[in-house]
């Protein structure tokens, strides 16, 4: 089966400085959500603008639903693409009310010949309710908050029932509680109406919740494009590990296809993600949830830091060879450990995915 969206070797530069280099990824099914994750200023927004046709690119191709939008010989103007982009900054027309702003989108879904999808299954009022802004219809953009503007922009983008929805940091101005509710409703709308969506964000939890797939943009390239589970548990490079800043790389020696050895932790069992030869020296990724706490264990290390995360504690343990290892413990665990105390680890150590570099 053909891919619904194909991004091929997309490159972009400003004044001969390369910003994006050979960006490629596909979206297989209509209605899938892809999240692009990456640090600020890396070019995530540029990818969206290039797909929308708002940026001239150096080379590459964008193919949507078997139609070439951009390649060496073709360029379809942004207004003829039926792609909606919700901008990170406030992009509401200041001289129109919220309702008039949204009607800009409705008009397209009803009258524009480029839009073959017809109107959305949700009405404007339903969408405003789902995004918790039913009372704003007659207000002007300067009369509403940044978070409200962002949700109005979302409604305006979705309501024209586009072939592709592009969202640039759509929840950056919302508080945590509201953000989660809006995300739930947005996901339901997208899945119900089968609107293929690309979301750009630097919030990995947002990406992991919403995305069917995630792309990690680092060093001008998409360095990993995979399911959220794999992105989290099986990062494919040290750069990705560094970007998530979660876990630590410890030196280890490969003993067999399922065993590693570290001088502080001893033998570590599990499934090696990549093949290594016995005796090879590697760096093993240990994330907080990989090791289990056991008060009765003989393998004990000193606690040097403790972070309370509500549902859990993350203890940082110092090993004799000066490794600093994070360990996740459920916050209801009966023994609280304080700094400088000894903290036991369950042996033998078993980690589902042995991610080594």
């Amino acid at each position, binding site marked *: 089966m053909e891919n619904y969206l194909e991004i091929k070797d997309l490159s972009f530069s400003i004044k001969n400085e390369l910003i994006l280099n050979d960006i490629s990824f596909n979206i297989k099914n209509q209605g899938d959500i892809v999240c692009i994750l990456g640090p600020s200023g890396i070019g995530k927004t540029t990818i969206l603008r290039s797909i929308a046709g708002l940026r001239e690119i*150096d080379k590459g191709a964008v193919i949507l639903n078997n139609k070439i939008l951009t390649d060496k010989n073709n360029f379809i103007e942004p207004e003829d693409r039926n792609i909606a*982009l919700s901008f990170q900054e406030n992009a509401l*027309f200041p001289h129109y009310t919220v309702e008039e702003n949204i009607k800009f989108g409705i008009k397209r879904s009803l009258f524009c010949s480029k*839009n073959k999808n017809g109107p959305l299954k949700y009405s404007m009022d339903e969408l405003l309710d789902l995004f918790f802004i039913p009372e704003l219809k007659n207000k002007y953009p300067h009369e509403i908050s940044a978070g409200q503007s962002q949700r109005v922009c979302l409604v305006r983008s979705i309501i024209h029932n586009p072939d592709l929805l592009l969202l640039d940091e759509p929840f950056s101005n919302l508080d945590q509680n509201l953000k989660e509710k809006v995300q739930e409703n947005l996901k339901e709308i997208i899945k119900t109406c089968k609107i293929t969506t690309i979301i750009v964000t630097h919030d990995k939890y947002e990406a992991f919740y919403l995305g069917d797939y995630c792309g990690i943009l680092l060093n001008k390239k998409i360095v990993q494009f995979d399911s959220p589970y794999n992105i989290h548990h099986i990062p494919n490079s040290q750069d990705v590990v560094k970007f998530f800043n979660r876990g630590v790389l410890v030196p280890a020696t490969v003993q067999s296809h399922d065993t590693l050895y570290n001088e502080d932790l001893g033998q570590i069992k599990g499934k090696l993600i990549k093949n290594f030869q016995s005796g090879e020296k590697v760096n093993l990724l240990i994330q907080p949830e990989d090791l289990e706490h056991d008060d009765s264990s003989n393998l004990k290390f000193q606690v040097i830091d403790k972070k309370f995360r509500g549902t859990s504690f993350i203890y940082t343990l110092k090993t004799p060879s000066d490794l600093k290892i994070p360990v996740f413990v459920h916050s209801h665990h009966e023994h609280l450990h304080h700094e400088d105390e000894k903290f036991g680890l369950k042996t033998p150590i078993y980690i589902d995915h042995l991610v080594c570099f």
Partner: protein
Amino acid sequence: MLSQKYLKLPKFNYWLVSSLLISTIVCIPIIVISTSFFGELSGYYELLKDTYLYLYILNTLGLLIGVLIFTFIFGVGSAYLVSFYKFPGSSFFTWALILSFAVPGYIYAYSLTAFFEYFGNLYSILKFIFGDGNYNDYIPRIDSLFGSILSISFSLYVYVYLITRACFIYQSQSQIDAGKNMGFSDYQIFKRILLPSARPGIVAGLSLVAMECVSDFGTVAFFNVQSLTTAIYDSWIIYDDINTAYQLSFFLIFFILVFFTFERKSRGRSRFSIPSRGYLTIQKKVLKGKIKWLAFSLLMILFFLSFIFPVSQMLFWIIKFPSNFNLPQIVDLTINTLQLVVLTTVILISLSFVTNYGMRITESKFLSVITNFSVSGYAIPGIILAVTLLSFISFVSDYFGNENLKLIFIGTIFGLIIAYCVRFYSLAINGIKTGYEKLNKSLDDVSYLMGNSKLGTFVEVHFPFLKKNLILISMLVSIDILKELPLTLILRPYNFDTFATQAYIFASQDMLEFTATPSLFLIFFASLIILTSRKNILKGF
């Protein structure tokens, strides 16, 4: 190596071409004057240099300093009172003070002279009240340099008032509260907080005043002040020595360029002084007791002197000499003036829209640079513009041996409109640019993504958003054209007069009371424009 950008081919750039054309026309005067300054010196210039040149320069400087002092006091003082205090009439004065913008300096000069001259109106008033007496000896003669300073100050202080007021009302109440918290009195708050932070705006206003002041012709010519503008006019019209006119123009352009640069720099800084969000609106202090009447009286005197006085003088003449009111002539003048105003405004606004829209969608730096250069047309006094455009057209038509060019451009409405466009291009283009700067570029992108073409975006997004700016700019340009004197005087078709030229002709023939009708009609139309767009004017600055 990166591959060439191939996905969008460059198209023929209409915006670039049209801007280039306008800029070229605007550049002509500057180039002509700069080159001629280093050209051959005529005998008349040598004579001037040894005799009156320094007097011209000194007079121009004296005029400038006097006008700057007066406009600063009138403009900043009135802006301070209406921005920070509530007192009887404060809302009225906020817009009423702008009305003095409708009275050109030269009409003010006619009123001053009529009032203070021998056996003038002041004499009549004194005689009416106290009976016969030798009052002439006690009535001060307000004419010459001081008369010019007063006339020009009353007609130009509005620039300082409007821009300073804008700076004052955009200041945050929290600044004032911080001052109070530190124990400052109202005066200390004004001196140490409000005045320094409004400084860029004040400088911008004063620079505009300075540019207009040194290029004034009507007032100084009427008062016989030997300034650079009158010398340019004389050397060209009386001595038929165009080279000397150019050489004198060079001094004037130099003065103006200094102020122009100053103005641009201070404007550039003032952008940062106006916060976009998160500031507290000024809480006006309610004045009580004698102070409130003092504030009222000060602004009433200013309003009276700058607007009521010249208007009542003109009205007095019309009532006193009803036979001077020539209806067919007034109809003619009205048609002539209004057709120039309407045609020029429409053309100018369209040109400015084209260039601004072009700059926005092409993002061309070249276009931006040439447009910036072309706006310097505002810095060229009308009289110089007229002289250089005339001689340029003569030169081109002689060069090509085609007399038709002269017929098209010289002494025609078409030629006059082109000259107006060059002169006021800066006003129009900057006005629309200010509007565009407030319209985020991603809104264009949103519109494209909603399926609108570039034209559709212009019609549905830009035009409704810029409507208020458009009205404001049209009004300002219209008032300026109504008042413009030297350009019209020199370039107008034969037997074609506007209110301004007709009033000037009567005044120069010492038929002062005849100036009343054209002057009053000029003030009437300008006031009408101001009154209908006063909210836009107050918001727009």
